[in-house]
């Protein structure tokens, strides 16, 4: 299934991606944690996962065409 991953802030550097957004094919039954593992992102670097606008945990099951937004620890201001 096709999953879009958005890399925010320094997560893009960790992944060494040229773009802020990458699209992958993942096997069915994949979870957020699998995305982090495949992209080589240490879980502690991701404070917040937003899928289709909703806050999610790392064990959330992915669905086709999900947009997974990964955020490092941030503050407002």
């Amino acid at each position: 299934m096709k999953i879009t991953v958005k890399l925010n802030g320094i997560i893009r550097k960790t992944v060494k991606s040229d773009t802020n957004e990458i699209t992958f094919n993942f096997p069915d039954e994949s979870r957020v944690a699998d995305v982090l593992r495949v992209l080589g992102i240490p879980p502690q670097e991701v404070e917040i996962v937003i899928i289709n606008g909703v806050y999610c945990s790392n064990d959330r099951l992915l669905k086709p065409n999900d947009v997974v937004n990964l955020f490092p620890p941030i503050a407002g201001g």
Partner: protein
Amino acid sequence: MIKIMRVNMSNLSIINEDVPDRYMNLGGRAITSQILCDEVDPKVYPLGEGNKLVIAPGLLTGTMAPSSGRLSIGSKSPLTGGIKESNAGGTAATTLAALGIKAIIVEGKPTDCQKFILKVSDKTAELIPADELSGFGNYQTVGNILSKYQDIASVISIGQAGEQQLATATVAVTDMDKKPCRHCGRGGMGAVMGSKGLKAIILEKAIKKPLGEIMDGEGFKVIAREWSKKLVEERKVLTNFGTAITMNFINSVGGLPTHNFSYGQFEGVERINGTALAERIKTNGGKAGHACSPGCVIRCSNVYNDSQGEYVTSGFEYETLCLLGSNCDIDDIDAIARFDRLCDDFGIDTMEIGCAVAVLMEAGVIQFGDAAGTERIIREIAEGTPLGRVVGQGTAVVGKVYNVERVPVVKGQGLPSYDPRVAKGTGVTYATSPMGADHTAGNIIPGRYGVDNLKPEGQVGASRLVQTYTTVIDSMGLCLFVGAVEETIETIARLLSKMRGQTVTSEELLQRAEQTIMAEIEFNRRSGMTANDDRLPEFFKVERISSQSTVFDVEDGELDQIFADKSA
């Protein structure tokens, strides 16, 4: 010897007083609010003789504690009509601590329109007539002062908005580059300073030191160093991208104020977000990772240049990019930077003006997305035109003058950049904080604090907890970005224990913070506010935000219970 400096603008006297025992363990917001509760009748006219302006560094300011250089300014607010504490970074707080000043209380009111500078050194303090600065913006005021006086470490000043005593007027504080770009922005503190005839406070250089002795200096140093190291490591995102990094996140949860709080997502977000800002800064020779106050290890500030490489502004923040950007449908980052510069110069709160201009757009006075029109209106504030004066009095006044139904304010103060329908816990803070709609009073960022941001359950408890943590942080002179979490409070308790040579517990700090909040709530009650003032505007409760199809649905009865167990 630490002191409280009392400056009376009616008779132009300056008296140094000993610090009463009951104020010794208070700093920042705790001391500004306590002095106001002790000395100001909550019913006074905010711009009259009876109101006071209290300026104070925090309890940890001047120590080795990281990011502890924030300055608190408190007064009865001309914007909300209630008590206010607004804080800023910059260089003033550490200088006040070095000068041994626990607080400056400015009281009274001059009989004519004369303007003064208060000049403070470690030996003397004097009021100097300064009519020649009248009508100057903050940049010109600071430039003039720095060319005239030697050895100045910091300048606190007001621009044209403060001189006009407008409710959106800020108090500017110079940063490490001596630019007046850090502001006590909210609640019209600049109007109160203007009403006192005080154009600027200038502080002479002094050797950095804390207010009072640290009993176990070595022990304190160890904890402070360890904490600094941790913050440097964990706040790299803020150092690299500034607060604007928040924009993508809030946009992705559907809570980014857009088109006067109509939508939670902005089409032009990629043009004004943290990445866009960082790239612009790099290309145009600006600076990221800029510390706004001495000893800041987070360094989230920045210097922003235009495409010719010329300086435009510093301290260009998320709230400005959103409220004068997405909330006005403006996606031109250079235009928003110019707004920021003009607001800093005139001494206007970018947040309040962003909300006010969007309401003006909703009224059809100018079109959404009109950057040139927005710039013209900001300039009119400084010029004192009738429209400028209306906008300069804030969002609520604009809504009233133009009969707009959707006016995003609580207690007369414009909402920050977290839509309360999506960030419901932050919405509870907007409604219930004695400060009015203020994200820095207790921001329940989605995904934190164990509550679901889209459900009403648990939001009141989370808001109360974080409002209390935040009050501790604001009383220490610490920047909020050290983190409003339990671990921070524990670290502060450990630092204070070393400072005093006796154990201070987290519980004591939280209790004292609750006392501060309750004193502020009581001040507001005596000023005439009721539970009806602890409410979000009606449209947030009936109009679904398109991004998440939800309303603000925390019950009024629940809001009223937030601090109920603490009330008398």
